[in-house]
């Protein structure tokens, strides 16, 4: 019974790992910075799940569950910091550059 579920864990883990690829695509393409941040958030959640899966595959879940818990608790600090950063800075329309040169900046903050 144990081996059978271990196989389930490995297959599920493979699929989950391959499903990291779409967020990665969003990270590579991502037109704006915040698209990338969203993708990072998704990968973070998926990592917490993956750690549980790896624990089942090792048959030592009681050891791995601890840092899945750490991920669940700490994962949103990064996105929160990025959100705070975007809050406190000039609106850039998602890019690091002002939208259309100096004029746009002047109209936004006269």
């Amino acid at each position: 019974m144990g081996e059978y579920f271990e196989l389930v864990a490995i297959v599920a883990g493979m699929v989950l790992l391959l499903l990291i690829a779409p967020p990665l695509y969003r990270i590579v393409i991502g037109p704006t910075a915040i698209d990338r941040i969203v993708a990072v958030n998704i990968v973070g959640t998926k990592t917490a799940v993956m750690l549980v899966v790896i624990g089942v595959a090792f048959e030592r879940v009681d050891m791995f569950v601890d840092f899945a818990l750490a991920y669940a608790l700490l994962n949103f600090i990064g996105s929160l910091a990025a959100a705070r950063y975007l809050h406190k800075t000039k609106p850039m329309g998602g890019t690091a550059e002002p939208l259309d040169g100096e004029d746009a900046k002047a109209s936004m903050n006269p």
Partner: protein
Amino acid sequence: MKWFGLIATAFTGILLLSAVGDFARFGDPHSPANAGVGDRPSVSQYYITDTYADTKVPNIVTAVLADYRGYDTMFETVVIFAAGISIFAILRSLGGPVVPVSHPQAIDTSVDGDHQRIIIGTTCRLMIPVIQLFALYVVAHGHHSPGGGFQGGVILGASFILLALAKDLGTALGRFSEKRYLTLGCVGIMIYAGFGLLCQALERNLLDYEILHRIMPATDAVMARSHSMLGVEVGVAFTVTAIMFAIYSNLSSNGRLDHGL
């Protein structure tokens, strides 16, 4: 510069790759690093087989970290403390009237709403005690499951960082002021060094915890090692917590500790 960088990188890479073939196969249980050379076993084999008899600690990594290689870890902790102090020295602007330096990008243009306080504030209010408890759990259970002083300290520091992000830096500093965190950092190092010096005071080597069963109640020589490791981990956790928050508070306010990110 670009071409020079590429050439240097390629040269180093080829040099390193030429050595890769000489390594043992990946995952080989009998490679020299894992099994020793010839009939002489490697030290890691000794750690795996004898740690539990020596110290009654199931987590081998914690035992090696805090006991067998305790001297190393003590000065790693000192390095972390020194990093905190040097950030203090580099960034902190002390004395004199606070000059309002304009941040290059910092213009708070947001629509003043209540969502920050209501949603993020409430979540963080509910999460922070749990995170702190979890951090202490990680420190206390480093013997039986992965974890220990470094991890617990980082998580505990992160909880204060979360408080600073959810409210503002002032709230977090109100709980964990500059004086407190610098003191806590020193206290952590002193706890670690104190365990070592206590052993020396009892006429044994530095950080040789076995002798401490004379002054610890209800322990034998083996359990003394286990409990001293816990004490040492607590010291590490204090230092790491203090320094993580010190780094954050100085970086996010550019050394002025007025208002952060």
